């Protein structure tokens, strides 16, 4: 299998094996304003946008900066804005895109350099929902925190979140309202909200914490986050379920 891969890669590029990339460039030490630079590269079968960017860096312009680590859609460090959509560069095939391929850093984040954006604001949002396990009671001595398989099913998808920031970049209320935790953080809150091991007290507290017109009620069901999530998570669904539960809780007094 490795050999077929090798032969395909070493094959000379045909005319259709070329790709043109318009890449957003900004180096704070050199540029006053960002600009777009066009690169033409030879493609190979299975080439991802990240491969293309690395190839540009290796062969044409060593100053091009892009954040990447695992190259297999697990670490979430290479979310960029490709042809008008937030995607993981390592998870997007060059052959599937219309050319020239427009590559920009994630919108609504500040740019540090080229395709690298400042993520601290995003991490602050994630932290604001207290994304850690807070059980009401410790289990009896010698026992583990056991979760039933049925309960685990609820959070199967939201657990896949890789903190890439694509959804928060796509969400317009998250951009204009800095108190809104944004889709990723709310999906993370849902992951703990749905975890029955935490107990009733924490569950209630988590819901109350998010209950604000700048919390769960700020969601406008644009579904942008659901569309761009590289892991197929639907933060919209999570937020809607929590706001539904929160209102149900309020209406309980006459039940």
């Amino acid at each position: 299998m490795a050999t077929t891969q090798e032969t395909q890669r070493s094959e000379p590029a045909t005319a259709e094996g070329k790709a043109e990339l318009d890449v957003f460039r900004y180096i704070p030490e050199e540029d006053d304003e960002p600009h777009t630079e066009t690169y033409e590269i030879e493609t190979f079968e299975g080439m991802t946008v990240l491969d293309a960017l690395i190839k540009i860096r290796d062969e044409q312009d060593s100053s091009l900066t892009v954040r990447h680590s695992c190259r297999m859609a697990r670490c979430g460090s290479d979310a960029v804005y490709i042809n008008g959509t937030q995607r993981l560069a390592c998870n997007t095939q060059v052959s599937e895109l219309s050319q020239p391929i427009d590559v920009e850093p994630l919108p609504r984040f500040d740019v540090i350099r080229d395709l690298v954006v400042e993520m601290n604001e995003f991490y602050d949002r994630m932290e604001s929902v207290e994304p850690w396990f807070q059980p009401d009671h410790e289990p009896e001595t010698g026992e583990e925190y056991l979760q039933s398989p049925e309960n685990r099913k609820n959070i199967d998808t939201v657990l896949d979140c890789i903190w890439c920031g694509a959804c928060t970049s796509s969400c317009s209320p998250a951009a204009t309202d800095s108190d809104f935790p944004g889709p990723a953080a709310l999906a993370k809150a849902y992951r703990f909200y749905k975890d029955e091991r935490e107990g009733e007290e924490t569950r209630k507290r988590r819901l109350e914490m998010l209950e604000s017109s700048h919390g769960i009620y700020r969601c406008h069901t644009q579904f942008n986050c659901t569309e761009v999530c590289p892991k197929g998570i639907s933060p919209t669904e999570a937020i809607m379920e929590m706001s539904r539960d929160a209102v149900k809780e309020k209406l309980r007094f006459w039940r």
Partner: protein
Amino acid sequence: MSTQKPSKTAGWNWFLQRVTGVGLVVLLGFHFAVEHFIVGAANVTAGNTVERITNGLIQGDHVLGQITINMPAFLYQATAISLLGFSVFHGMYGVYNVLMEQDTLRAYEKPIKYFFIVFSAALFVQGILIFLAFFEPFWQVYDPR
């Protein structure tokens, strides 16, 4: 990113926004049906408006031809008042939230909030005054002829 400020009223307001919204689908639909589909906007006069409000008598001769619906007066008045209240709340709370979504306007959160409360109240009072002006003892205040 500041810390979350939990709110007790946000949930209720959000819920009321939904309730009034669903209510308005019916009430505003009814309002359009009466004013534009049965009576026809061009045929609206002070006289037939008074008939509708005080007697619940909807009479029209528009595209659909002669139509007469005699509703209980209190029912028509109830739809009118709830249409007023629902639309003022739904509209003003909606616009307020559009503004509060902008970080740049959050600095003026308090003044904007009080402006909207006062403005909504003024709109509601204005609507009530219009409503009352359809009844004889009041319309003479405005129209002595």
